[in-house]
């Protein structure tokens, strides 16, 4: 048999379908010029991110590439190539028949398939296992439970035993699983951007270290992000002992520096505040988005939501005041929200301090007006005065049960002042306690980096390790980090991606993903978790402890041994009663090391710690003019930098889920924008998507504008993390890099200007219309209104009763699944959206497709504004399939692909769907999603490993939608049947429900009157969406109750 015809080879080398070959071209290379592999790679790399998921095959499928393939695999490429000549046809037919009978004659791929000799413990094929681990972000751990299907981690959920999670999770921890399978992840050691080997790297490192040995390490520098890993900290400490003159620098572009310095100003020592929002009756946030960012926001969301629960007809709620420079999740749920520019927050903080008579605050009391009323000379406008007066009034009533919190972008002085205010209010030890900072030696990270760059420029650094940060991309622009890096003789980048910094280093060592390496991490309260791997490294990568072991002269150490040894040593030192082995196993099982939470320390304010009017001397104040309040359009304005809510400082740039996840409030995907207020937009005649030029300190960027109701008037907000180069196919080409505007001293906000530029750029938003048009969609009342009319939500719409129908109601005898979503708890944080995406194999469609209105999320957060456009109320409403009992989608499907099951689920039969889209047209909630193109990844095997095997991957042309996680219901049913019992309450937890930090989602059996969901639906606040259409939705909402101060602007 001619070896040309081995059909099975085609499967290995993915020929483009439909391609034809010249038979003669098989073994002999054609004369046409051959493109090099480099060129092809460049072409592939040149593709921008948002195209990646749907057209990798497309972009690869060009003539040169096929040519190349043909030359590289001549045998395989020359199958099926000619027009079907009779002879050829017979040959092929003969070959097929021969193969059918004599497959052993054909060389099989050289793979050994070995069955389990001993079945691994607990491993039942088809049944997932769950392991506890921890996800570290900005140095702080959140406990997670990772679901593993036959050795493949597929899903991340919160660890109920972990204090920062309590079983819930956030978008970042869940989306981090996508990085594990990201084909763009760095896979090989690189030397000067060429492919190298670990051995060569280690040899090179050994040489450099030997040289440093002689110098006591005076040329050795380590630059890391914030880390709280005890092992890593210990290793670096050991390293600094070995090389006494070496230094460790830390840098985080959006880190905790201000917060830590604030604590030091206030207390003289670095301390980490731990808030108890569950005990706070009044919360005042000064530009802090504590429900969506920071090192414990999942926990804080849970605690906060616990004070927003309303049962029965009485509303006993906490009250939230938020003054913020950008509309955030926290601002969206505030009872009193005040848009202020970041620099003006200082005045509010000062005002609070004055009115609350905080000791040490200089009070410029001119004597007009009694204490407790805002004074004119504070420079506050009437809105601000009103907000402040209400906040002060409520804070005074809630001494010992209130929290005042400042945001990470606020200068240290404000943090110090806020500590003083909390102290004055008697909140210490009641709602605010302090623990030693979990991370290793906090420092003002910006300055630490500046020092390092100085040394690099002076040629004092010979060997530099950069781990867990990307300063070439995000260091302050004035530091000129990249040129300084080029001066270092040996620089080593340890990162997940071959990013901007890695390409500037002489060596790049790919980092193991945390799901494939051993490590440890600490939570906000100091609790230690062991990070355990779920899978062997997919590529030849190293974890940070393993890399540091090389530095410590212990080559080839395994992560497991390093981490275990560290804790063994500690255990021996602590002389715990249990043996180390028990502690170790229990810690791995639980996901937390018991008893490692830090004990609270008594924080004592230093005398006059908050001295001086705030905001006058802060580093951050540099560059902010005083004339901001009287700004005319076109002149000075405040430029505020924030980490993007989804991709943060850029570390999640190559994460398709997060790029495509609509940002809270703005609903923007795949891009960043210059967010401006409606007032500024009108004054400057800027419209959405117009390119504007934002300028600070001589540098400018061109970026599309997006008008954001509730944005402060005199500022523009820019999100970091975009405009990446070479960071991966997803990240590249998304948004605009705003780092050129960001200089030391103006890392969070600074003065600048904005003017309208030429052109526009389309911004892919998932919601174009922001108003409810007077329709009773999101129903809300104040606490006073609610207590007067607890059934207000039901009165806002009409629900037909069964007696109005001619047809008998269907009875559900067994289970009757239903969901209730508490709008009072929901913050719009998006955790449910990513949880659903991960659980249900929901594809990413890319920017173009979002622009086309084809995003695929099964659950979406609708956001509506009401009231004044300059400071609107923000309403977040999660909407997924309602599982209507009279579902309008069902009768219109011509093939009966969507039906009701016996438990009341509206189910989609994917393989019956022919794709008429009639069901979607007829769905009043528009929750159905259609595979207009082949969205699901079919080509990349790595990405496919991530799929949840319990959920069908949908092909093009098929409708899909929320299933109430029917696969989880089935799993529970199987378990229950095996034990001859009913499914228990709480046994079925939907993905969205399990993720929700605020526990806003309740799911269960409506036929069980004792189930949580039945009780929720019996609440007076319960209402259904569009029930007047007689759809009888199984998902209903609990109306939102706000709790504004009755004395403020007529609200009651």
């Amino acid at each position, binding site marked *: 048999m001619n070896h040309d015809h081995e059909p099975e080879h085609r499967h290995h080398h993915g020929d483009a379908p439909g391609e034809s070959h010249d038979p003669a071209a098989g073994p002999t290379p054609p004369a046409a010029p051959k493109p090099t592999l480099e060129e092809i790679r460049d072409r592939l790399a040149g593709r921008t991110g948002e195209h990646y998921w749907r057209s990798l095959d497309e972009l690869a499928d060009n003539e040169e590439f096929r040519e190349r393939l043909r030359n590289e695999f001549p045998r395989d490429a020359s199958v099926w190539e000619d027009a079907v000549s009779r002879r050829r046809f017979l040959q092929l037919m003969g070959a097929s028949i021969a193969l059918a009978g004599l497959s052993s004659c054909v060389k099989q791929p050289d793979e050994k398939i070995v069955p389990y000799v001993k079945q691994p413990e607990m491993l039942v094929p088809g049944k997932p296992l769950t392991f506890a681990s921890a996800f570290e972000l900005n140095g702080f751990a959140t406990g997670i439970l990772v679901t593993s299907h036959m050795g493949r981690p597929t899903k991340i959920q919160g660890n109920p035993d972990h204090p920062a999670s309590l079983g819930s999770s956030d978008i970042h921890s869940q989306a981090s699983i996508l990085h594990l399978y990201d084909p763009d992840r760095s896979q090989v050691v690189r030397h000067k951007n060429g492919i190298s080997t670990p051995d060569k790297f280690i040899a090179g490192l050994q040489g450099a270290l030997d040289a440093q040995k002689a110098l006591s390490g005076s040329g050795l520098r380590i630059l890391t992000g914030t880390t709280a890993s005890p092992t890593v900290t210990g290793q670096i400490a050991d390293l600094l002992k070995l090389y006494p003159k070496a230094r460790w620098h830390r840098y985080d572009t959006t880190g905790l520096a201000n917060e830590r310095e604030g604590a030091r100003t206030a207390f003289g020592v670095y301390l980490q505040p731990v808030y108890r929002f569950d005990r706070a009756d009044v919360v005042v946030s000064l530009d802090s988005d504590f429900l969506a960012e920071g090192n414990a926001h999942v926990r804080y969301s849970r605690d906060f939501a616990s004070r927003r629960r309303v049962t029965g007809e009485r509303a006993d709620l906490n009250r939230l005041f938020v003054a913020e420079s950008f509309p955030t999740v926290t601002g969206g749920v505030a009872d009193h929200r005040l848009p202020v520019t970041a620099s003006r927050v200082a005045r509010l903080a000062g005002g609070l301090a004055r009115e609350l008579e905080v000791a040490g605050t200089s009070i410029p009391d001119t004597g007009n007006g009694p204490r407790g009323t805002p004074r004119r000379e504070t420079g506050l406008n009437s809105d601000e005065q009103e907000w402040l007066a209400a906040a002060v009034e409520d804070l005074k009533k809630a001494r010992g049960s209130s929290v005042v919190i400042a945001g990470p972008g606020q200068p240290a002085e404000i943090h110090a002042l806020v500590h003083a205010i909390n102290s004055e209010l008697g909140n210490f030890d009641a709602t605010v306690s302090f623990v030693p900072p979990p991370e290793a030696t906090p420092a003002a990270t910006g300055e630490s980096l500046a020092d390092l760059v100085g040394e690099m420029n002076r040629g004092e650094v010979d060997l530099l390790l950069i781990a867990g940060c990307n300063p070439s991309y995000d260091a302050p622009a004035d530091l000129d980090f990249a040129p300084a890096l080029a001066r270092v003789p040996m620089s080593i980048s340890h990162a997940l991606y071959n990013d901007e910094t890695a390409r500037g280093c002489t060596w790049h060592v790919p980092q193991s993903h945390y799901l494939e390496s051993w490590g440890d991490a600490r939570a906000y309260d100091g609790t230690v978790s062991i990070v355990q791997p779920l899978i062997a490294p997919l590529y030849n990568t190293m974890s940070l402890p393993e890399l540091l072991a090389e530095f410590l002269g212990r080559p080839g150490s395994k992560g497991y041994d390093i981490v275990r040894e560290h804790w063994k040593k500690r255990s021996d030192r602590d002389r715990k009663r249990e043996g180390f082995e028990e502690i170790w196993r229990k810690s791995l099982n639980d996901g937390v090391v018991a008893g490692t939470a830090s004990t609270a320390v008594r924080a004592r304010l230093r005398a006059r710690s908050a001295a001086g009017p705030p905001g006058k001397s802060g580093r951050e104040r540099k560059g902010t003019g005083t004339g901001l309040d009287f700004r005319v359009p076109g002149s000075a304005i405040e430029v505020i930098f924030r980490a993007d809510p989804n991709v943060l400082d850029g570390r999640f740039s190559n994460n398709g889920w997060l790029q495509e996840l609509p940002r809270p409030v703005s609903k923007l995907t795949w891009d960043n924008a210059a967010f401006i207020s409606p007032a500024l937009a009108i004054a400057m005649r800027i419209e959405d998507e117009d390119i504007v030029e934002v300028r600070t300190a001589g540098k400018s960027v061109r970026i599309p504008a997006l008008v954001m109701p509730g944005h402060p008037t005199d500022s523009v907000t820019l999100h970091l993390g975009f405009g990446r180069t070479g960071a991966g196919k997803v990240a590249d080409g998304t948004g605009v890099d705003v780092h050129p505007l960001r200089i030391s001293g103006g890392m969070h906000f600074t003065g600048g200007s904005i003017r309208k530029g030429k052109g526009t750029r389309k911004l892919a938003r998932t919601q174009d219309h922001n108003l409810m048009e007077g329709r009773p969609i999101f129903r809300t009342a104040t606490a006073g209104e609610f207590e007067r009319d607890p059934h207000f939500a039901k009165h806002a719409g009409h629900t037909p009763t069964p007696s109005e129908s001619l047809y008998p109601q269907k009875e559900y005898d067994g289970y009757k699944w239903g969901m209730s979503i508490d709008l009072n708890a929901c913050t719009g944080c998006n955790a449910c959206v990513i949880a659903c995406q991960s659980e249900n194999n929901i594809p990413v469609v890319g920017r173009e497709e979002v622009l086309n209105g084809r995003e695929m999320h099964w659950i979406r957060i609708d956001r*509506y504004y009401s009231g004044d456009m300059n400071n609107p109320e923000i309403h977040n*409403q999660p909407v997924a399939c309602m599982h209507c009992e009279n579902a309008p989608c069902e009768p219109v499907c011509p093939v*009966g692909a969507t039906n009701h099951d016996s438990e009341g689920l509206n189910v989609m039969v994917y393989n019956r*769907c*022919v794709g008429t889209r009639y069901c979607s047209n*007829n769905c009043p909630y528009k929750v159905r999603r*259609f595979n207009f193109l082949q969205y699901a990844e079919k080509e990349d095997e790595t990405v496919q490993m991530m799929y949840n095997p319990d959920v069908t991957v949908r092909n093009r*042309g098929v409708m899909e939608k929320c299933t109430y996680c029917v696969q989880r219901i089935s799993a529970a049913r199987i378990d229950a049947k095996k034990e001859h019992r009913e499914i228990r309450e709480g046994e079925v937890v939907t993905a969205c429900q399990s993720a929700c930090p605020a526990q806003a989602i309740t799911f269960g059996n409506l036929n069980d009157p004792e189930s949580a969901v039945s009780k929720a639906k019996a609440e007076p606040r319960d209402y259904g969406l569009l029930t007047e*259409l007689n759809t009888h939705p199984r998902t209903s909402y609990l109306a939102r109750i706000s709790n504004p101060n009755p004395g403020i602007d007529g609200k009651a």
Partner: protein
Amino acid sequence: MAYKYHVTEGENVAPLIAPGHDYATITDKISGDVLDRKTPRGMMITLAVSFLFVLVLIGAVSYLFYKGVGIWGINIPVGWGFAIVNLVWWIGIGHAGTLISAILLLLHQHWRNAINRFAEAMTLFAVACAGLFPILHLGRPWLAYWLTPYPNTMEVWPNFRSPLVWDVFAISTYLLVSFMFWFVGLIPDLASMRDRARKRWQKICYGVLAMGWRGSARHWHRYETSYLLLAGLATPLVVSVHSVVSFDFAVGIIPGWHATIFPPYFVAGAIYSGFAMVITLMIPVRKLYHLEDFVTDRHLDFMAKVMLGTGLIVLYGYLSELFFAYYSGSEYEGFMMHNRITGPYGWSYALLILCNGLIPQALWSKRVRLNTLALFLISIVVNVGMWLERFVIVVTSLHRDFLPSSWDMYTPTIWDWATYVGSLGVFVWLMFIFVRVMPMISIFEIKHLLPWKGRIYDTSADAN
């Protein structure tokens, strides 16, 4: 069954057939155009251009099958776009043929004899174009047969509650009956062609198609009976097909769709657009083949009057939609109408009223009706207007429905347009091929219109 044809028109009324014709000249002229005459240049050009568009359609459909319906502008919430607009438009156009052939036959409107063959062919091709779109618009077009109730081992049936299944029956029945009607009507003429053909292959082709017609009295008797029966069968279809198509919308709960006026209003609209298309095609063909003798100004006048009448019903439909949006008191209905008129697609509604409501009012004037150019232009305006009507119904209703969060815009892509103009190309191409190879006017039927022929049943002798 015998009835009289009365020549009662006054002298100032244009005749239905030009003076000077007898049986022989009619047969010579109409069959000669096919058998003897060299293809006119204009015809060749039209064929070539329309074939270019056929190629466009083939290209667009190939890419569609390769990539999926995502190449179009549809999205969530606008799940239906050009495909459904075109479907309804083509089906509407396809109504003229059956109406002319069947209903006018039963109503003894003998002037129809000059245009029925042409209109039937047009119907057939329009329905064929229409039938293409429901298949193309499927996400998985290769499974289109699942919409039919075929026996299968899984015992899975289509969902008979869905109007799309009714569509399958309505459209396929209509296509079949239209085809039979057209073909049965052709048989005597095919025999004429067979007998007059000089080339052997022509003799064979026409001979096979003529199915052995000899023109005997028995043949004529059977023919007339079956033709009348088919007319009776086809008549309810004129009403049913577009009623069923309108159910696609009326059964939905979307404001702008959920309306009881839809079936009659759609049927009237269908006839309106059907006659408009007959006029649009007939005027140039008449010119090209010098058929002014057979398709006289009087025919055009009649067709213009039908257009005017059905146009008024359609206008009534628009007004009743407006009224019910107001009178229902439903917030969503009211908003839908408001959005239709003032929203981002307001231009389409304004154009629709202009094209379908206002401009055709010029047809009240006899001068306009008898002015070929004016009539031609108005018929095109009506065709555009009727297309816009379907666009307005499909797109403006869907793009802003109940929850403002899901509102979005629909923008057709190049592929939407390619499929649409491609279907137009197919239609024109098929039409011109038909004109080239078949007698486009019913030879034996038009003879009834000869003014000195008092009776209609003595035509058998002239069949050849």
